[in-house]
Structure formats: C-alpha cells, structure tokens
C-alpha cells in the first residue's frame, strides 16, 4: 500500500472556504429584511417573463448581427488594401473604446440631433425615403445597434486571430486547386478557424447577455428594465434583482451546456 502525501494546508483552506459559503448562504436565507416569498412571487410573473423574452431576443439578434459584422471586419483587417484594413482597424478602435453605456445613450437619443433619415438623389429634389428618427430608432433598435456594433469590435479580433491561425499552406493549396479567395475563405479557412473561434465566441455570447442589462438605461424593455420597474413600485429592489440574477444564471447554464456539446462536436476531427 502506498500512503499518499497529506496536504494539510489544502485541507484547512477547503474547510474555511466551505464554512464561508455556508455562512453567507445562511445569512442571506435567514435575513428578516429579505422576503424569499417575493422572489417566488415574481420569478414567473408575466412581466418578468416578457422582460426575459426581450433580453433573449436582444441578445440573440445582437449576437447574430455582431458575428456577421465581425467576420466582415476581420476579413477587411487582413485585406491587402491598406485603406480597407485601416478602416476596419479604425472601427475596432472606436467601438472598443466607447464605453457601452455611452454608446447606448447616444443611440437612444439620436433623435436629439438627427430629426429624420432622408435619402434622395443628390442634385435633384427627388426624395426616396424620409422618415423621422423616432420611428426608426426605437429603444429596441437602439439596444440591438449598440450591442452589435460594440460586440462586433471585440469579436472581429477573435475572428481575425482565428483566420490568422490557419496556415499559409492551406490558402496556397486551395489557390493551386483553382479556388478564388472568397471560396477559399468560405470552404477552407472559415470552417477551420471556427474551431479556434468558437470557445471565445461562447464567452462573448455570455458577455453579450450580461451587457444587454445595460440597455435598461434607455428603457430597452429587457429583464433588468422590467425588474427595476417593478421594484420602483413595490420597493423590493433586492428581491427583484435576485429574480433577474436567477434568470441570467439559468440562461447561462443552459447556454454553457449547448456550448460544451457544440465544441465537442467540432473538436472531433
């Protein structure tokens, strides 16, 4: 029989951690100022579920737009044309630099300095489109625009590093077989880059879900907006934040399982 080394320090630390967790949970659970019944009451209330629905829609739509935009910007970044790659670099610089909350407030208040969107034929009086800003940029549109513009700036860097991870030999082999550069990108480079891109993209999705809470500053109608609205009438701020937290965590758990399964599938080859 082999007697393994005993890690006393590790054991003592584990005991301390477990005690701390138990103590925290106990103090929250038994705090007389905190009503679990309120949490239970609102967890499945129609307005909270509607807020959850908008959060999911905002996140998924923003994510989809951001991914497409990110691929476009990443491809522009590695373009041989200096002008195109500079434009892409500038985009990343700007939208990674602006704090998301500033961007959202800007977009949400676009109507303050742009009254309407007008598209006409220059030099003539012909007006093709003329719509007031307030009709186009609803809080939903502003939320999705802000999240996807900012998200794309981060994701473009992820996509770019994924594209660069695919060696020159792959592009050359494709080229030698007569593939155009766009086909090479679509059939050879992107499918392989996906394996590099997917794990950090999963994290971006979770980041996007959490960032979607920020749209509450322009009353985006998301989960947090709704939870704060309810708290504004019944003063159960903490309970409603717990309700929102529970939903955010649940969505992340479900998503993480999907992410795990997807990564396992793409890693197989």
């Amino acid at each position: 029989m082999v007697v393994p080394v005993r890690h006393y320090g590790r054991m003592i630390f584990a005991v301390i951690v477990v005690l701390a967790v138990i103590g925290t949970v106990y103090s929250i659970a038994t705090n007389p100022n905190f009503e679990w019944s309120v949490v239970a009451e609102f967890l499945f209330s129609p307005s909270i579920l509607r807020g959850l629905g908008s959060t999911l829609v905002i996140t998924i739509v923003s994510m989809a737009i951001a991914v497409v935009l990110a691929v476009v910007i990443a491809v522009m970044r590695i373009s041989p044309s200096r002008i195109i790659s500079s434009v892409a670099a500038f985009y990343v610089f700007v939208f990674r630099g602006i704090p998301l909350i500033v961007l959202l407030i800007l977009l949400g208040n676009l109507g303050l300095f742009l009254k309407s969107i007008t598209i006409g034929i220059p030099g003539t009086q012909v007006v093709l489109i003329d719509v007031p800003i307030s009709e186009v940029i609803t809080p939903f549109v502003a939320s999705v625009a802000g999240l996807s513009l900012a998200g794309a700036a981060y994701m473009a860097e992820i996509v770019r590093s994924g594209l660069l991870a695919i060696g020159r030999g792959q592009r050359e082999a494709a080229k030698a077989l007569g593939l155009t550069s766009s086909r090479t990108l679509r059939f050879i480079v992107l499918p392989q880059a996906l394996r590099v891109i997917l794990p950090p993209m999963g994290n971006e999705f979770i980041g996007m879900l959490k960032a979607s809470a920020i749209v509450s500053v322009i009353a985006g109608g998301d989960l947090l907006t709704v939870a704060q609205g309810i708290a504004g009438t019944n003063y159960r701020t903490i309970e409603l934040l717990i309700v929102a937290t529970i939903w955010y965590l649940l969505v992340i758990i479900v998503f993480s399982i999907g992410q795990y399964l997807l990564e396992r599938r793409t890693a197989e080859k």
Partner: protein
Amino acid sequence: MSDRIPNPANDEAPDAARPMVHIQHVDKWYGNNQVLHDIDLAVEEGETVCLVGPSGSGKSTLLRCVNHLEEIGAGSVWVDGELVGYRLRNGRLHELREAEACRKRVEVGMVFQHFNLFPHMTVLENVSFAPITVKNENKAEARAYATSLLGRVGLAGREGSYPSQLSGGQQQRVAIARALAMRPKVMLFDEPTSALDPELVGEVLAVMKDLALTGGVTMLVVTHEMGFAREVGDRVVFMDAGRIVEQGPPAQVLGDPQHERTKAFLSAVLR
C-alpha cells in the same frame, strides 16, 4: 508589365510541336532581390523534368511561377500554348482577373512539401472537393473518380479517414490524388518527400514513378532524391542562384557534370 515579350504569335496558336510548359526569359524579384535570372525552360508533353539545386536557388519560386502562385517580373510562362496569369494585348502583358486566373490554374496540379491537405475534410472530400466546387463536376462522378484515384495511389478503403489519421506518406499520396482529380495538364511537385520519415519516402516516389512512366503525366519535380531523378527523370535541370546552370539527361548531369557548381552540389548531396 514586361518589355521583353517573346513570340506573341504563340498566343493560343495550336502547334503540335510546342512544349507543354514553356518558360521564356523569366525574371523574378522580391523587392530588390532578383531570385530568377532569365530562365528558359521547355517541358514536353509526357516528360518528367527534375529540378535540383542548393537551398535558395529559386527552384520553388520557378515552380510557383508555372501556376501563377507568384507573379513574374519579366518574361512569360506558357502552359499548353496559353499564357499563364496574363493576357497579351497590344504587345503588353495584362494581369488576369482573379476568376480567370483561377480557371487557368486548374490546368496545373501542385503537390507541396507539407501536403497541405484540408484537415476538416475526409480523404474523399479532399480529393473530390475542387472538381465539384471549381469545375462543377457532377458529385457522384467526381466521387467515383476520386475513389479510383485513391485506388491508384494505393489508398483504397481510406476514403472516410481524416488526414490526421494518416501517415505522412499516405497524406502525400492523398495530396497527389487531389491534384490529379482536376485532370491537370501538368503536375508540379515541390520537394514532395522532404517532410517524410525516410521509410515513407519510397511509397510516395513509387506513386510518382507510376505517374511518370505508365501514366504519361507531364511532371516538373523539385527533388533532392537523386535516385528518383536518375531513374524516372527524362531530364535534370540544375539551378543555382536563380539561374539554370546546366541541364540534360540524368546520366549526363548527375554522372558527368560539366560545371563546377554542379559538381560541388552533387558531391555535397551524394556525399
């Protein structure tokens, strides 16, 4: 691009005697560094030409000019009587648009030192992908042809494997089948066995020998395998410092080299 354009009459003029590959007065620069100096080389249909020479002598660069992976600085390259990568108009060379250049590239197959198989595709997909995508071949026919080519390179039954599940020698044979699947007029090999373990070199050379001797494939081969050059090559071309120093039948160039640089290279290689 060029001010030295030889024999414009050659442009697409059918001529039974013309070589399959005709490299004429090709110069190539990387910045200020000239890596090819006035290269002239003709490869006849069905001929196997082996390019040998020290590292950095421009062998790969020359090969890559034949399928326009590299642009040339001056001169012209012709495959089966057609200009590669350029169009002749009013005595000047105009670079082809990408789609056109790609269509022409199909006529030249290339095998790389590091195989460059597509790791996310099965062996069968690697071989049938380009015929289906680029040449719009019928899927079933392309797969059937791919399967027969895989049989020819000794890989029958491995259609469903992924490249990572194959040895280097097997991967290189898949790469040869992949190039052949496009039914090219010329096959280029850039040191196809240099990345292989010694015991796997033979199986790849055997496939190439079969293509050259029984398949009648026109081949331009960069190699350090002097045994292969001697046995399979119709001609050996020795390059040094971006120039063709001497060429001729393998027995002559390898057995009785005339130039000092060839002698020095061969004695270093053969030890």
